[in-house]
């Protein structure tokens, strides 16, 4: 039952992230749900542990769906691109249990865009409560909306600066009851209360959201 519940939660998260992006007027590239968790080992095992935000789920839409024909790989030299392709190939093999053929091989040979790579690397990251962009948004319970390359680069936050290098021009973190919803876009998107209300409706599970 626990596994079934976990599966249900993941599916629900995915549907909500997808609904958030696909239903938006703006062109978001991806959405990530950073989920609040507690690390009992780091906390010494004597209480509820250290609070951190870890990967809950993510939905990557990409850039080409909105008619952008030119993929962004500007920050990448040939060696880095080869490295990305190799990682994709290895991950394909890992996920498909080594039985990779045809389309999976082709997928590994295609260029990996900057935003794809940023999204992929995000899966390996987590943030202590109060640190990084998601951690700050959660601790202070306020939305952080960085719009324009200058805002990302000058934010003093490593994740935003990294995002700017990978072509993001808008990065938003919206806190919810048990986590933070992060959205990124290669477009400059101005702050909208609609989006924040939508996140409140979809992701505040404690209040019957969704």
């Amino acid at each position: 039952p626990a596994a079934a519940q976990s599966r249900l939660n993941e599916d629900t998260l995915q549907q909500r992230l997808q609904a958030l992006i696909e239903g938006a007027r703006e062109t978001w590239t991806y959405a990530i749900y950073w989920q609040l968790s507690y690390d009992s080992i780091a906390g010494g095992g004597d209480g509820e542990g250290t609070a951190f935000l870890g990967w809950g789920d993510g939905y990557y839409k990409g850039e080409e769906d909105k008619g952008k024909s030119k993929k962004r790989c500007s920050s990448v030299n040939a060696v880095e691109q080869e490295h990305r392709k190799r990682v994709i190939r290895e991950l394909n093999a890992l996920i498909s249990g080594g039985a990779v053929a045809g389309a999976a091989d082709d997928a590994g040979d295609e260029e990996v865009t900057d935003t794809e790579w940023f999204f992929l690397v995000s899966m390996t990251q987590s943030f202590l409560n109060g640190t990084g962009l998601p951690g700050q948004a959660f601790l202070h319970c306020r939305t952080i909306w960085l719009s324009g390359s200058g805002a990302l680069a000058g934010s003093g936050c490593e994740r935003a600066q990294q995002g700017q290098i990978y072509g993001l021009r808008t990065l938003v973190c919206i806190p919810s009851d048990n986590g933070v919803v992060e959205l990124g876009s290669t477009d400059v998107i101005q702050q909208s209360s609609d989006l924040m209300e939508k996140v409140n409706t979809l992701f505040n599970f404690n209040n019957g959201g969704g």
Partner: protein
Amino acid sequence: GGDLPIPRRRSLQRFLEKRKERLVRNMPYSP
């Protein structure tokens, strides 16, 4: 290969599958 936490494994699986779909969709037609 079995040491990925389940949420990340499923997210990764979805990401890779969608990437393949996008690549196939954007592939130029060759008769």
